[in-house]
């Protein structure tokens, strides 16, 4: 029976490793519905994934090592109580050298892990190390509220380019809900706010997550490396409809993006009168 238990304790790590091994092929791995498959869809996301894999390798090695040691100890300990074996257990209070080794080695590894990723963190969060493209200002203000994302874009100027985003709403502003558009391949910044409780802006395929804290306007930047639709959802419990905050982030080319803003302008100024070819374009009256 005791050997059964030894085996029992060894089966599950093997199973666990096996499950992890097959996980990517079963789809139990990074989200794959985005245009880039399981690969992160942003350069920063790729670096985050690299860090994840690095830690995964280190921890897997540790896991395997400790489980083998545990297994060995268990089988040997079980054998020690076999019939006829009357020898007492090894009388030892420990080993100073071993203690030093298994303190210093993990310490170095852990310190390495900690220091190695400072750079990624700084790039993600520290304003001074944001990509230079984001210095032009935010492309949109994303306001979370129970239970949707309301997005305010600046309107288009006379030159057909978006105006700068103002902190206060402007008559020219354009509004959408649950539909964030951004230019692909370009680092873009949004201003994240919340109208009520705390929410969290989560783009799983881009590995971006940032809480929207009441009372703060937080800049968030991201860069989609491939065009397409990405998931956007809330990752901080915000009430009963937490799971309902389903939105998308559309990464598209600059032309398409401008076209989207133009369409938005058009639909936002739609006055219900069917267009007649003679009269030409509708009056963009709100955008004086």
């Amino acid at each position, binding site marked *: 029976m*005791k050997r059964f*238990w030894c085996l*029992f304790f060894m089966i*599950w*790590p093997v199973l*666990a490793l096996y*499950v992890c091994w097959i996980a990517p092929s079963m789809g*139990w*791995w*990074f*989200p794959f*519905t985005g245009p880039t498959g399981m690969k992160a869809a942003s350069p920063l*996301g790729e670096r*985050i994934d690299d*860090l*994840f894999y690095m*830690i995964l390798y280190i921890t897997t090695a540790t*896991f395997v090592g400790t489980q083998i040691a*545990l297994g060995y100890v*268990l089988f*040997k300990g079980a054998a*020690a*109580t076999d019939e006829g074996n009357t020898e*007492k*257990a090894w*009388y*030892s209070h*420990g080993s100073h050298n*071993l*203690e030093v080794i*298994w303190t210093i080695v993990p310490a170095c590894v*852990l*310190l390495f*892990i*900690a*220091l190695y*990723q400072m750079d*990624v*963190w*700084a790039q993600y*969060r*520290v304003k001074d190390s944001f990509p230079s493209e984001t210095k032009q200002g935010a492309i949109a203000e994303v306001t979370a509220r129970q239970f949707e994302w309301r997005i305010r874009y600046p309107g288009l100027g006379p030159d057909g380019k978006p105006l700068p985003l103002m902190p206060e709403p402007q008559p020219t502003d354009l509004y959408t809900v649950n539909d964030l558009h951004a230019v692909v391949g370009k680092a873009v910044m949004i201003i994240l706010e919340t*109208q*009520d*409780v705390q929410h969290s802006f*989560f783009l*799983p395929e881009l*590995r971006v*997550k940032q809480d929207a*804290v*009441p*009372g*703060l306007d937080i800049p968030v930047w991201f860069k989609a490396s491939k065009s397409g639709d990405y*998931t956007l*959802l809330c*990752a901080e*419990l915000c*009430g009963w409809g*937490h*799971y309902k905050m389903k939105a998308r982030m559309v990464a598209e080319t600059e032309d398409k993006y401008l076209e989207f803003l133009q369409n938005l302008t058009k639909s936002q100024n739609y006055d219900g009168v069917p267009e007649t070819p003679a009269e030409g374009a509708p009056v963009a009256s709100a955008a004086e």
Partner: protein
Amino acid sequence: MSTVDPAIVTTGGHGHADDHGHGHGHHGSFISTYVFSTDHKMIGKQFLITTLLMLMVGGALALGVRWQLAFRWEAMPIFGQLFPAQGGQIPPEFYTMLVTMHASVMIFLVIIPILAGAFGNFLIPLMIGADDMAFPILNMLSYWFMWPAIFCFGASFLSAGYGAAGGWTSYPLLSALPEAAPGSGTAQTWWLFGLTFVGFSSMMGSINYMTTIINMRAPGMTLFRMPLTIWAMFITAILQSFALPVLTAAGFMLVADRMLGTCFFIPSGIVVNDTDPTVGGGQPLLWQHLFWFYSHPAVYIMLLPAMGMVSDMLACMSRKPIFGYKPMVYSMAAIAGLGFIVWGHHMFTSGMNPALGMTFMVSTVMIALPSAVKVFNWIGTMWGGRLVFNTVMLNCIAFVSMFIVGGLSGIFMAAVPVDIYIHDTYFIVAHFHYVLFGATLFGCFAGIVFWFPKMYGRLMNEKLGKLHFFLTFIGFNGTFFPMHLLGVSGMPRRYADPYLHPYLEHLLPMNQFMTCCAILMGFSQFILLFNFFYSRQFGPKCGRNPWNANGLEWTAPSPPGHGNFESVPICHRGPYEYSDPKHSEDFWLQTDPPAKRGEGPATVAAH
């Protein structure tokens, strides 16, 4: 001789009947013996039974959560009866309530009281050779302050919205504004009052433990002869008494925000549920800082005592001295010390100052170090031992094994950039369940079986114990291991219906599998309860020292009478002198007088 087979353990030299009479003979009144007892053993048992019952409540709530995740929007068994008009479909706010109250009940009414309240109370005086706690009445009060807490949580269930639903972290503004969620009304207020009572209870307990451990040790029981359980309890008490007041204070502030119109956590201009904009200028992040200043150390409060107990049990069941006694003590102290400065790692994505994030990252990564040292030492303890594979040992090995997983998955979270992605996903849920259930609860199961003879003078049923362990272990891993993968897949926590989002749709079968495992695990806890109450009545009687262990508690009668020891025990050596070649038996009670000249009380167990 050296193996401990419960079947062949017979009643020792001291008859059980004597012991029993000794235990309950002093006070005739039922009330003073069983209800308002000031005896630490009775209080410990009261805590134990209360928490085991609360464990079932918390488990039922968890099964509700799992049901919804596997069979979303279908009629939910039992809970669905509350919503007959909807055909038993539960609304999402009920789901968030289930999530919140499961966590609250499990943390505040199960894990913290079972470790500190049940085992701390029962073991501390026995293990250090004291006759009772330093302040017996305070001790009794610390138990009875649990009941207002339980009452408040119960009232929370009965309030509108079926209970607090702001998550156990109760982040404002969800928890500060009654309009923000159905459960944020009176239910949340009750919840906060409950928390305050838990705080009072813990504060009384921990002051009591510290005083007892500092000043009431038996002669010869030097600090470094204390069992690791006592060290762990001591360090836990320190953590609890110096971290918890911060949460209590924060709780008062939140209650004031809710009831007295203050605005510590409420910024101005917030509009919730179409109400008027709020006035104020407070900071929601302040709550997070205060909350995690307590709740991160609380994670260690929920773990350290189990670590200590497992160390004792592992040494006994391996018939070997603990490997590296002092490093074990130092690493626990290091965990406690670092535990105070890592709270910010719960807030990496919250928008706090990024420079703070870096500091917190380094300290958080480094807290893995003492944990690693402990794991290595446990394996070292078993190395070359004569292992006894009984229920106690199996649960202890499970503790070590699960703690390795929980510890390693913690490193992912400590790394801030990775945490950006996995924060608030099921990876976190997997991590803390591996630590809190996998480690702590398996440690508690082991502890219950190990010290049950001392509590009731009877042994627990081995077969049932092993069956319970087997089913729980399988159910546990089946439930929680896949959560790592869900987390990597980006499935956020606290979602009533994750499959609404296309990238999570394919995870439904896996969740159904997990729910089946969870149901298996949940129902196997009935075996434990049955075993507990059955063995309490019908288990085989045992002597003073059924496990051939060394600690002082094993020299007292089973169960110990009032005042614990017949005479003051005198401690001659450390608690881990198993298989000493100089001694004829493979255990050497701490009270046994030294065999030879020169080995006096001054010898220190570890070198």
